[in-house]
């Protein structure tokens, strides 16, 4: 037992020991942001070049995980910035009183206007059904057409996955009171509902299903990183639901100045130019070099759907109950 203990202590020490000479800015974010393939490493290097600080990006699960972690820690949190919530979570986060107003004005290249005093956007995307054009000949151009097609799809559970929740809100925004009818029609098309995006996308790549719920930027990944031109996102006439990813300053942060300068950096070219080919989303500010061709948007700006943050959480619970009821039949 004694050796075990000393081993544990040694382990502890190796993790805890860290010299502190520069001010530390702690940013809670989601896991894929900090991974070696995500924007994290590039963002950290670019920001630390000028800030004279130590930027610590800490992954705490997914978007919903960031908020629940912040609530768990309450006022005791070490986080100065949270990065990675979306508009389905912002109203709830603002209501918790844990977010401080950012006081920054910016102009954004997005199909919608932005005026949230607590959160600033850093990237956005459209949800879409992705298919392989060598395998799917008749591509549906609406939910109605998808329903009458013979295609099989895989989606994610809204309770455990961001795209899953996005689809729920998408059908809600496009069909409102008629949403239940759409879900009834979609139900036989749905092969299965996975916990997260990874399983669903993996199943699609393995050829298990014809289409997967993902983003219009998923084909951009295959084009740029794999030179694979076969993956396409189906454009739907009803319009496409947006995901806007945002960041905010934590109330009571011990580095408010640094936090604010990080948010300013976030909407500058240094950060924005990293986003497209690491997070595979659209930047909110056009990078100086322009966007790669593979990021051409398949959806016109007037087809963008987004339920405002303050209405989203109210609609969500009823829509989820309906979704469960219809798909459980």
């Amino acid at each position: 037992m004694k050796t075990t203990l000393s081993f544990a202590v040694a382990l502890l020490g190796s993790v805890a020991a860290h010299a502190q000479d520069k001010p530390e800015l702690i940013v809670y974010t989601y896991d894929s942001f900090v991974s070696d393939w995500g924007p994290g490493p590039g963002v950290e290097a670019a920001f630390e070049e000028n800030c004279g600080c130590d930027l610590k990006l800490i992954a705490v699960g997914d978007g919903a995980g960031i908020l629940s972690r912040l609530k768990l820690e309450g006022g005791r949190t070490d986080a100065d910035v949270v990065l990675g919530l979306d508009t389905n979570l912002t109203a709830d986060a603002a209501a918790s009183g844990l977010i401080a107003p950012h006081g920054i004005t910016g102009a954004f290249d997005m199909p919608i206007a932005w005026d949230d005093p607590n959160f600033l956007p850093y990237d956005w995307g459209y949800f879409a059904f992705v298919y392989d054009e060598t395998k799917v000949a008749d591509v549906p151009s609406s939910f109605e057409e998808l329903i009458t097609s013979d295609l099989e799809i895989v989606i994610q559970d809204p309770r455990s996955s961001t795209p899953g929740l996005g689809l729920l809100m998408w059908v809600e925004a496009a069909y409102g009171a008629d949403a239940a009818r759409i879900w009834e029609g979609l139900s036989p098309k749905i092969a299965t509902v996975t916990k997260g995006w990874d399983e669903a996308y993996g199943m699609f790549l393995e050829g298990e299903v014809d289409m997967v719920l993902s983003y219009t930027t998923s084909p951009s990944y295959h084009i740029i990183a794999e030179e694979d031109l076969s993956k396409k996102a189906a454009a739907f006439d009803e319009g496409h639901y947006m995901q806007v990813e945002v960041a905010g300053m934590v109330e009571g942060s011990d580095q408010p100045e640094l936090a604010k300068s990080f948010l300013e950096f976030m909407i500058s070219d240094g950060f924005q130019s990293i986003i497209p080919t690491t997070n595979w989303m659209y930047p909110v500010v056009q990078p100086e070099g322009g966007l790669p061709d593979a990021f051409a948007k398949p959806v016109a700006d007037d087809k963008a759907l987004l339920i405002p943050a303050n209405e989203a959480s109210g609609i969500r619970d009823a829509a989820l109950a309906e979704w469960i009821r219809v798909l459980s039949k």
Partner: protein
Amino acid sequence: MLACLALLVFGSLIAVISRADWPIALGPGDWAAVRFTLLQSVISALLSVVLAIPVARALSRRQFFGRGFLMVALGAPFILPVIVAVFGLLAIWGRSGLFSDVLGLVGLGRVDIYGFPGVVLAHVFFNLPLATRLILQGWVSIPAEHFRLSAQLGFSAWDEFRCLEIPMLRQVIPGALVLVFILCMTSFATVLALGGGPKATSVELAIYAALRFDFDLGRAAVLALVQVILSGGAAILLLSAGRPVDLGQGLGGARRVWRQGGRGIDSFVICTAALFLLMPMGAIVLRGVGGLVGILDVRLMEALWMSLQITALSTLLAVGGAIGIASLAARSSRGWLIEVTSTMVLVVSPFVLGTGLFIIINPWLDPFAMALPVTAVVNAALSLPFCVRVLVPALQQVERNYGRLGTSLGLSGWDRTRLMLWPALRRPLGFATGLSAALSMGDLGVIALFAPVDGATLPLLMYRLMGAYQMDAAAGVALVLVAVSFGLFAAFDRGGQLGRHL
């Protein structure tokens, strides 16, 4: 040790409830989840254990080329990370899987496993091997002399089954059922991936949603409590029914099959089980080999090192704790009650466990700094019940058979351990250590929920690759993970059997 476990389980439950908003209410959806989970777990557990009986029997009777390999390979499905196993299963049973292709060749439609059958199929895949190993231990514990005697007395196969094997099964099966039932109760990603829709749901999902989606700590804790009560109830019911049976004593020689016949059936059973278990494994290996090229870098080595550190610590804790608890349980007349308590830790949702520990630790220490030791402790707690289950029957038997002799010879302390306990225990101990090490390697749950550290463990690296569209590389990491887990398991499991001929 037991008190520590109880503290871990109930402490985290209480911690979560302490932060809840009152009143706490469960919705109709939650009860639907409880009903489906219960049904699914009962069917999965019964099927896994019932199917494991002929497999274990055949394996106990036959010696054949590759038996050793098969025995170790049996441990593999159980230690696979869920997501890897799901893709392995889909490669065989999915819409574009091998089985569908074969059906297509003969002009039949594809199989559609999504839904209840898919969930049960996956759970049998995971748990049949574990059940087989547990039951096989029972068969091995029947003295070879009994089989010889029954052959001399002209017992029919049925007589032999009734007089020798049924009493052993009565002792072994309840414990196996309890473990598999509990594992199926807390299964989460499998149920979703193969369940086909929200009808196939689980209490774990409800807990996850309550914590992450609604931030309703009270509901999460109550759901976790419902899970504890259901599994605890099942455990008490089954374990109290399975009283220890005195199988008698032998010289510990190897089993010989005295009876002719039954060879065909045994071969069929072994081949079917091996195909069922090894085909998805083969698919995982094939899938991973292609991804190996791009991943052999320093990241992989760091993740491997991190995983090995956690595994070393948690295996040490788990096996040490299990020896203590098992020897207590083996000596006590209420041993099954001690076992039930040690099993409870499996039943409490890891989400609630992680959240509860976080609430407890956060005011005192930096949870991020504590991530590694906490992960190791929780991993140890999660693999401890398996170790206890494996060790208790062996300890009971050695005490029963040699305990009095040992005492009359004045064996105590180190000599008793070395001369009496060690020879009988090292085989189950090897199995338990291997199981524990492999389980810790493959675990992701706690580290991701509690406080992800700067570096990544192997499972975390795999998930990060998947999240970055790099499915091939992720399959490669999965293969490394499986190979290392499997290597650890095999090393300990075989190590326990070296030179066992007395």
